[in-house]
């Protein structure tokens, strides 16, 4: 069920809409700051792609909207793709924070924290392993003025506040650059057996 939260920022209040339906997404347009820059491209710039994701099973879209018209930030939670390593634990066990993005103009309002709060507000969260993969080549280093390592540490601080922890993995895409980051939040109701399987899966080793 969709829920709304008002998130105050120095640039004005933003409404955070949790668990947006396709119909809800259609009411908004991307702000003009979502786009391509010299060194950075927004992960999502077309509403169609968001609608497509929102229509999938077990997927959750959270939007941050300005004046009830423009999307100024978004968050996506979805199961791993079937061909990804993380699908190996079986259906419904792992869920990825696939995106958390705030448009450049709205980045001083700790909006990412608000989006994550909404995204992870789920009664089943303690029964799942939520993970995020940070690929340094997707980070807006120019816009943030941070080095890749500083950006990485900023992400660690952000997600640690939501009980994520930095985890080691030999997943090849994560290993491509030392700045890349893999973090996971293991719910308190996740069985020891699944936790152990997850540990082995992270290292690509069969039990």
């Amino acid at each position, binding site marked *: 069920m969709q829920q709304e939260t008002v998130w105050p920022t120095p640039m004005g209040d933003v409404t955070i809409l949790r668990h947006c339906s396709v119909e809800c997404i259609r009411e908004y347009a991307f702000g003009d700051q979502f786009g391509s820059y010299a060194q950075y491209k927004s992960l999502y710039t077309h509403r169609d792609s968001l609608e497509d994701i929102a229509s999938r099973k077990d997927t959750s879209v959270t939007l941050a909207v300005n004046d009830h018209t423009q999307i100024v930030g978004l968050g996506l939670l979805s199961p791993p793709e079937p061909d990804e390593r993380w699908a190996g634990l079986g259906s419904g066990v792992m869920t990825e924070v696939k995106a958390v993005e705030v448009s450049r103009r709205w980045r001083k309002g700790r909006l990412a924290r608000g989006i994550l709060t909404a995204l992870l507000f789920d009664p089943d969260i303690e029964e799942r392993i939520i993970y995020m993969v940070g690929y340094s080549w997707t980070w807006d280093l120019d816009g943030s003025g941070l080095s*890749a390592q500083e950006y990485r540490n900023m992400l660690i601080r952000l997600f640690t506040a939501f009980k994520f922890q930095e985890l080691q993995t030999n997943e090849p895409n994560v290993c491509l650059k030392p700045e890349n980051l893999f973090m996971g939040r293991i719910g308190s109701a996740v069985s020891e057996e699944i936790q152990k399987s997850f540990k082995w899966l992270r290292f690509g080793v069969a*039990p």
Partner: protein
Amino acid sequence: MRYPKELVLKSGEEAIIRPLENTDRQLLVDFYQGIPSDDRWYLRYDFLDPEVLRKWFDDIDSGTVRSIVALSDDTIIAHASLYLRGFGSTTHVGRLRIMVAPRFRHKRLGTWMLLDLIQLALDMGLTDIRSDFVAEVEAAAIDAAFKLDFFKHATLKDYAKDPDGNRHDLVIMIKRLHRSWSDF
């Protein structure tokens, strides 16, 4: 950095990585006693010498060495260090050295230790990591370094001697740590 870090090795054995602590002295001695003397020959320090060990731990306290260990069943199975100058023209460079217990070699443990030190170096703002290898003797380590984007910076011909007095080249390898990525 957040420690301890869990690892599962290629063999399925589990280990953790954490910083070396002052209370680890005996564990470290036990570890180096298990390293073949031919391997210890190429180290920068003789960790079995109590006086060397004392000075070396003092260096950790003074911040000129950052050191991590891997443990399995409360036994040190690998030790890695990043040596820092702290002053002058090479403060941007960290020198690293890794030693893995023979039973745990070729199980990716050395790579995990190296990746952890790279993270540490990045956090400290270093821009170059240097590691020296004795040609032929440390061929496997040189291969591993290449795979992690180290490049051969210089070779000192016939610089090092093995325990039998035979001379070997010393290969100086460098890895650059970039602040950001450019387009390609």
